[in-house]
């Protein structure tokens, strides 16, 4: 069986680079998008099991992408994980309200992040 597919979206190249490395390292099949528009385009064709999503991005922001995923039947199995520098309680609440499975604030601990993602993906694994 193929590895779980994860889409990573962030407009900061270094963060994107880090997340890509971490996910690959832990056995996920990773696709990256450098901004919201690219992510939307990728979501047209692929069916990731999870999306690691930055919120503040030019043009199309994380909330919009999340809303798109939640309103698309084909992507109903796709889990949304926000990874954002928006850290206030209200921001986190809004993230969960919009249907996210996880909300991770920046800067994050790589070890903790990997653990959380793994836990999130377990039920889907056989």
């Amino acid at each position: 069986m193929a590895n779980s597919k994860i889409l990573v979206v962030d407009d900061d190249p270094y963060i994107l680079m880090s997340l890509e490395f971490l996910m690959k390292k832990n056995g996920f099949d990773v696709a990256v998008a450098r901004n919201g528009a690219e992510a939307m385009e990728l979501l047209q064709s692929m069916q990731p099991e999870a999306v690691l999503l930055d919120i503040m991005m030019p043009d199309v922001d994380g909330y919009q992408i999340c809303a798109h995923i939640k309103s698309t039947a084909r992507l109903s199995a796709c889990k949304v994980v926000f990874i954002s520098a928006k850290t206030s309680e209200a921001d986190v609440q809004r993230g969960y309200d919009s249907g996210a499975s996880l909300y991770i604030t920046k800067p994050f601990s790589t070890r903790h992040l990997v653990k959380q993602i793994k836990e999130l993906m377990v039920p889907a694994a056989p």
Partner: protein
Amino acid sequence: MGPITILMIGLVYLALLFGIATWAERRKLQGKSVINNGTVYALSLGVYCTAWTYYGSVGRAASSGIDFLSIYLGPTMMAAFFWPVLRKIIRISKVLQLTSLADFVSTRYGKNFSLAVMVTVFAAVGLIPYIALQIKSITHSVSALAQQQSGAGQQTVAIAVMAVVLMVFTMFYGARSVDTAEKHEGLVAVIAFESVVKLVAFLAVGIYVTYGLYNGFGDLFSKARQNPNIANLLLLKPGKGYFDWMAMLALSMFAILLLPRQFQVGVVENVHEKHVYKAIWMLPLYFLLINLFVLPIAVGGMLSFGSSIEADSFVLALPLADGKLGLSVLTWLGGFAAATGMIVVETIALSIMISNNLIMPILLRLGRFQKPGQNQLQAIILWIRRGSIAVVLALALLYSFTTGESLSLVSIGLISFCAVAQFAPAVLGGIFWKGGNKNGAVAGLAAGFALWIYTLALPHLWPQSSFVLAGLGGQAWLKPQALFYLEGFDPAAHALFWSLLVNVGLYVSVSMFSKANNQDRYHAEWFVDVFKHGANGNNSLVWRGVASLADLTALLGNFIGTERSQNLMAAYANRHAIPLNHTQKADPRLVAFTERILGSTIGTASARIIVSTVAKEEELQNDALINILRENQQTIEVNKELRRQGQELQKTTRLLEVANTQLKQLDAQKDEFLYTVTHELRTPLTSIRALSEIVQDNPDLPHQQRQQYLEAIGNESERLSELITKVLLLERYETGRHRVNLAPVMLAQLIRHVVERMQPVATAKNITITCAIADWQALVQAEQQLITQVLYNLLGNAVKFAKSNILVALHADYQEWQVSITDDGKGIDPALHQFIFDKFFQAHNQTLTKPEGTGLGLAISKKIVALHGGSIYVSSKPQAGATFVFTLPI
């Protein structure tokens, strides 16, 4: 045309008037008042134009040219003052329910009975000849219309019958109700209608003469010019008549306000103050129209008749001589309307004064009417008023038949005007000068009238008597028409000068040097300040009467009916929340109310007498009154102060609101700034932490990848520290903690230096920087470090965005140096120009891909330039590069 035919026409016309009056009163009952209308009000004021206007203006024009106009120019000028003057009189009269000039004057000077009598007598003496004049004009016009077809006997019968019908009309519609404050609906409607009739008729004659008998104005006046007698009339004679003109203007200015008939229609019958507005322009327009054809008719008459007939009858004679019977009848009707309108209103106004101020007080003193339960009193009052009407008309008839035929229309009119002008000081002084008092008014009026009689009335009646020709007792300086050797004036102008001079002089001086009683002083305050009391100043009137409610109600019932009296009392008590307790003493306000209602029925002077029979007046002590006045004054002062403080408070509140809004904005800006700063700090921090953990956790990382990650960590650390530095800098500039240290800076040199330093970075990106700076020093007062920072920021941006070329230029404008840095990059949307100098604009609006730099460079540059008194702006179009310019004062 026979006198009987004329009589029939006259009777049909009078029947029409009855019809209109009845119709108007019925409309009133249906709640659709005809006279509650500005146009009708203005037209009713047109009662000013009498038979004197209709026939006499032409007569005067034929004898002295355009002098006739002065009588209409005066009122036209006064119309400009209607708002402050007429409206004030209306307001006072409405609130106090004053129904005649005599009431007005006597109330103003402390409800003084003798003043009411004086005004009444003087008005009657001055105006009955004027009414007679109207009757005479009817007589003349009837005989002119009848020509020589029949004897004088039939004519006299015709006139007598018409006079009787007119008297019945006046009595019927002029004394409808005991309450004279009630409007005479039918009467006013008729007066307005008659104003239309006389205007239409006069215009018809004028047009007929000008365009029927002659070929327009040009033809008429060119013919006139060939006749030296007439041509002379059309010229203003230099040096002559200046004073006469002024006197006529003054006379007629007073007349439009103070003639009893004008007071009646203008004040008593006024339904709403706003109607005065319309009258201000409409009345002068009416005067203009009715005078338009006076000169053409006068000239036409002189050309046709020479001096063979009296000029006063030109108006009627012209169409008659031409055999135009229909037009002649219309013309006659116009004159009839002018005369009857005046007769009716003047008679009613005089009769109200006579019955209320002369007859009622005597009757009321008899005691018989002071007992309660006298319901027949209402009828008695009405019949007294009707009797007065009959007496006034009878006197006028008598006068018109006994005086000679030679009196021209104009001279009697002017004599009456001059009599009425005597009221001016007391009335106008009374509403604008608090210092005027009863003694002054009595002295002024008495002396003015005495002089009027001596200098004008007597010489008019007996022009040939020895005292007129040689002066009283042979003393030449006492000649009535040349008093103190003042000669060469029109008799009316001469009389006006002396009578008003003495009148005003005595009014002012006696007022100043005598003591007013308390009622007088109180009313002085009240009249002059009437607009301060609001539209319903009832409560501020002083009357400390004590009476039982039962007495008051019964007393009022005598005059207006028991039921109505009870209703009125209850309504008033209800309105002012006064308890109605029949066993106790009535509230003083009810006593005052009773007196006011009675005043509108029988006049203020009589009302005072009647009420005093049941109410024991607590004589106002001097101190008490002064206290009331002083309290008023203090209240006004306190109110003023309160209002001033209130305004100040409002101003302060507004300022606070503005400051608060600004603070809130600043606060919001600060919050947003902090929020953005933390976000901007978190991003590089995230990379640094994540990458260093990766390197740490993955010792087996390929060397190249490890190097890449470490380099990224270095870059992000640098970005972080730069950001912190800039945030701190910006904070220093924004809070003003950074004091700019100005010193002479050589701008050109500085620019070259910065460009040199940036050269390697640019070269690495294949970008050429061109410096277009002339060979000048460009000395500015600035802090070198800061300007350097700006240059680095702008040049750094340019290098970031340019494709291959950057141009740096320096220009001198009138008062400033302009440094411009132009790149050939992709440009900036003009819609964004106003935002790009905001902090973190780049972060908020990341149309650019990954933000390079901190997003604070332009914000800092803007701040620095502002600190130097310069400005910074950008001009750019998408895809066409951008030019950033900053200026520094020279």
